[in-house]
């Protein structure tokens, strides 16, 4: 997902008896679906885990602009270009909503930027894959944003108020992203044989990385169990992945495209699709920094930040000048 394998710092799930009175009161509120707001008491581990999760999510939105930004200047029509620009701008907006939500937990924007630019913070594995053809823009909207929506819709109900409200805004906009992606795929799939082959090639390359987005099975993970108890994670990784496969396979069939998984088949008994094993070795390699584009993504990010330095300084200087003038006038 946009936040993958978030650690909670706990080694076991506390029983209510083990909790301090404050912790118990907090857990009771969470159990009753009462939202937790910034100034209220919260366990330190909850606060830290949320900062990790929300900032990782925000970083993913920011880095996620790069693979798509790659095609803005080469979009096939002016309309497609305007749409892609709007989408990439939305990603920046989503990053900003999320950074603000993280800041309510006591971390500063500068710290968050520093964590991203230094490579210390993680972002989703999916954005370390290259966008080789225009069809990749379609596949990203359809599959990557589709997978993100699977996770973000339930997160609208998460226990932390600012995160939940950011998710509400994001989900409203994300639906446009997925539909525009499917629209691109539809056009290509109904186009010339070459165009259809491009769409199939994009599906071949993005299918497995999209399934990896949900992260490895967390059925045994104490971190996931803790996050679910805190209601900052609503569904297990396997649950969401299954839901995504069930939803997406008919959409691929409608396009006349083939999902690149020989083990994929409908299971009438479970009423779900069975599918093959994800190559988790590849996933761990990408997370460890060895994906196709990890270095390039970070380099581009740092370059953009450094080249924006003079703009930030100029804006500061201008604000200071105006403030000084206003002060002189008042005196």
């Amino acid at each position, binding site marked *: 997902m946009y936040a993958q394998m978030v650690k909670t710092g706990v080694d076991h799930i506390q029983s209510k008896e083990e909790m301090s009175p404050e912790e118990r009161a907090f857990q009771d509120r969470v159990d009753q679906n009462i939202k937790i707001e910034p*100034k209220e008491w919260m366990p330190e581990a909850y606060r830290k885990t949320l900062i990790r999760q929300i900032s990782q999510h925000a970083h993913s939105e920011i880095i996620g602009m790069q693979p798509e930004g790659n095609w803005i200047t080469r979009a096939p029509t002016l309309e497609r270009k305007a749409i892609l620009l709007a989408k990439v701008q939305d990603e920046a*907006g989503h990053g900003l909503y999320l950074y603000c939500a993280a*800041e309510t937990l006591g971390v*500063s924007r500068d710290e968050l930027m520093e964590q991203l630019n230094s490579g210390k913070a993680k972002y989703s594995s999916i954005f370390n894959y290259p966008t080789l053809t225009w069809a990749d823009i379609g596949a990203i909207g359809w599959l990557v944003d589709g997978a993100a929506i699977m996770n973000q819709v339930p997160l609208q109900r998460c226990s932390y108020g600012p995160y939940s409200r950011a998710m509400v805004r994001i989900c409203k906009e994300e639906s446009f992203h997925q539909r525009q992606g499917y629209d691109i795929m539809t056009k290509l799939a109904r186009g010339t044989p070459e165009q259809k082959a491009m769409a199939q090639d994009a599906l071949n390359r993005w299918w497995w990385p999209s399934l990896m987005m949900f992260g490895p099975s967390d059925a045994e993970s104490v971190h996931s169990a803790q996050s679910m108890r805190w209601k900052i994670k609503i569904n297990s990784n396997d649950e969401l992945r299954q839901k995504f496969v069930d939803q997406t396979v008919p959409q691929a069939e409608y396009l006349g495209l083939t999902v690149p998984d020989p083990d994929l088949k409908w299971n009438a008994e479970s009423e779900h699709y069975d599918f093959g094993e994800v190559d988790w070795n590849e996933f761990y390699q990408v997370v460890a920094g060895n994906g196709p584009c990890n270095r390039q993504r970070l380099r581009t990010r740092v370059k953009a930040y450094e080249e924006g*330095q003079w703009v*930030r*300084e100029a804006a500061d200087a201008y604000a200071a000048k105006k403030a000084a003038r206003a002060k002189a006038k008042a005196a």
Partner: protein
Amino acid sequence: MTDKKEWPLWEVFIRSQHGLAHRHVGSLHAPDAEMAIMNARDVYTRRNEGVSIWVVRASDIAASSPSEKGPLFDPANSKVYRHPTFYEIPEELGHM
């Protein structure tokens, strides 16, 4: 990365249509009020969500503390006579 001076945080309020009150929608960083309004337009009104924007420095907002919620709001609990439903009006009078 030499710059370590962070822009102040602004809270953003948007009037979604004429006749409604401004409503808090989120926050952002900006060097001054003018830039805060321009940024708020880009961050919070990309789909015609508003007809007017207010920004205020987050540090200028005074807030009630969650731990004082009891003493602050409890006094209203016992004053049921402030609600119209407290009073019984004879049915034959009709709507009042």
